[in-house]
């Protein structure tokens, strides 16, 4: 395969993984309004769990499910005490929890090999079919993204999703309508974190090597930038924005930069500035949420 094409395939795989992360964070932050800065930690939990189990011989599918499940479980356990908090305090606590998780990845050397990372992660495989090339993995990535998208959309357009949106708008008013907002918030967090865990497993079994530096807090803010520009609450917008920004970010790697210009630092600088500009000028994003209308239903019912 010519190298340009294989680069594109690689880019697409990364896009599917980040697409899942974006839709996941969109559910938690864009739809429900929970400022969860620890999102990258669940990405990491999914990755490490899946990788370690697979290396111990567990078939990929179950290792991946374990990663998803553990991410969801930890979201549940940490969510119970923290979802009592409002707005900025929730942000700070989730930030702290995310960093503690990363400290665990970095310092629990006997389990995770710390900064040296985990090499030799087995490829993903399903019923004997091994996803050992980028093209094959792209298939897996696209299917996963599609699945996550469908689940997120179904959730968003259900009465459950409606309550989530209400919580984003005005949680007090939702409580006054008799809804136990706690239950809704916890589920949003669990599902979003589980999706992030799925993305983590995919990432681990694609790159076949992971280390704590992939799960830094900046990643959560990069995803936050994506969903902010794609329009909070809009899953299709999130995917479009993922395509744009992941392409830009990977593209930065290929511009010939001077020796001293570290590409990772550069993208953090540029996108950080972009995040500031976006927050000030385009907080609602470029692509508005689709409006759900009812009068047509009514007219049809009457005719």
């Amino acid at each position: 395969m010519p190298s340009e094409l294989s680069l594109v395939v690689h880019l697409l795989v990364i896009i599917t993984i980040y697409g899942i992360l974006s839709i996941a964070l969109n559910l938690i932050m864009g739809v429900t309004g929970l400022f969860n800065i620890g999102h990258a930690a669940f990405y990491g939990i999914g990755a490490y769990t899946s990788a370690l189990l697979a290396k111990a011989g567990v078939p990929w599918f179950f290792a991946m499910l374990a990663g998803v499940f553990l991410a969801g479980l930890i979201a549940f356990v940490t969510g119970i005490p923290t979802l009592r908090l409002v707005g900025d305090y929730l942000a700070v606590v989730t930030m702290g929890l995310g960093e503690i998780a990363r400290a665990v990845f970095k310092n629990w050397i006997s389990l995770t090999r710390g900064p040296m990372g985990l090499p030799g992660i087995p490829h993903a495989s399903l019923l004997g079919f091994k996803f050992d090339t980028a093209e094959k993995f792209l298939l897996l990535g696209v299917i996963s993204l599609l699945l996550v998208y469908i689940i997120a959309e179904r959730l968003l357009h259900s009465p459950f999703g409606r309550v989530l949106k209400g919580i984003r708008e005005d949680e007090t008013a939702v409580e006054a309508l008799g809804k136990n907002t706690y239950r809704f918030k916890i589920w949003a967090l669990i599902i979003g974190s589980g999706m992030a865990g799925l993305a983590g497993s995919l990432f681990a079994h694609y790159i076949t090597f992971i280390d704590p530096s992939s799960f830094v807090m900046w990643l959560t803010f990069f995803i936050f930038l994506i969903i902010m520009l794609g329009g909070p609450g809009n899953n299709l917008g999130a995917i479009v924005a993922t395509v744009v920004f992941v392409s830009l970010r990977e593209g930065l790697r290929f511009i010939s930069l001077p020796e001293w210009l570290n590409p990772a630092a550069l993208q953090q600088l540029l996108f950080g500035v972009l995040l500031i500009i976006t927050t000030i000028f385009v907080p609602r994003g470029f692509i508005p949420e689709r409006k759900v209308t009812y009068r047509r239903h009514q007219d049809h019912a009457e005719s």
Partner: protein
Amino acid sequence: MLRVEDLTKDFGGLRAVHHCSFEMPEGMIFGLIGPNGSGKTTVFNLITGFLPPTTGQVFFKDREITGLPPYMIAQWGIARTFQLVRVFHRMTVMENLLMAPKHQAGENLLLGMLRVPKVRGQEQEAIERAMALLAVMGMENLADEYCGNLSFAEQKMVEITRALMTDPDLILLDEPASGINPSLVNQILDYIRKLRDEQGKTFLVVEHDMRVIMNLCDRIAVLNYGEKIAEGTPDEVSNAPEVIDAYLGV
């Protein structure tokens, strides 16, 4: 229907509500008035569970609801509006109203995602009920408008309608007439009276505007600096010297 006993609320050193007691039977329109800062909205918050009382108790239909979380009190049949209207701005009027009905099957994660027939049925029923309620105030054409685009008066009406969608027994209205032009106010008052006469709904109304209260309420309690200084029919209260003092005094 509602009984408030010896309700007191302290904020640090400040006593916002001072041993307030009153009760109201079913089907009454009860008014709560007083100068700014007299604690009226605090009493609302205490009744609906948004603030825990320092001392005192609240009984609804003879069951104690003191200190219960707001969502539970709402589920038992008390609905409220807010002084600063709290509609969901980035959602349409219809979406605002559809969120209100209690015990929706679709609010269960799995059932909602799968959109089982029960969910679809409930949605359809709710849509019809919402349209009917909107029609009463002539607002059907606003069903698909974002609440953020509505006028203040329209938002207030949406909030009241949304409260009604929960099929409550007791409705707390926090300043329903403020900021609305007089002709529309009469329409709202007629609507409230109609709901009481035809459906037996009970109302507790906080208001500033004396004329609205006198016009609408069967019975009134007057608060001043958190204390109830008078209670009675509109005539009794408007002639009570303590009330006149409170409103005109410094």
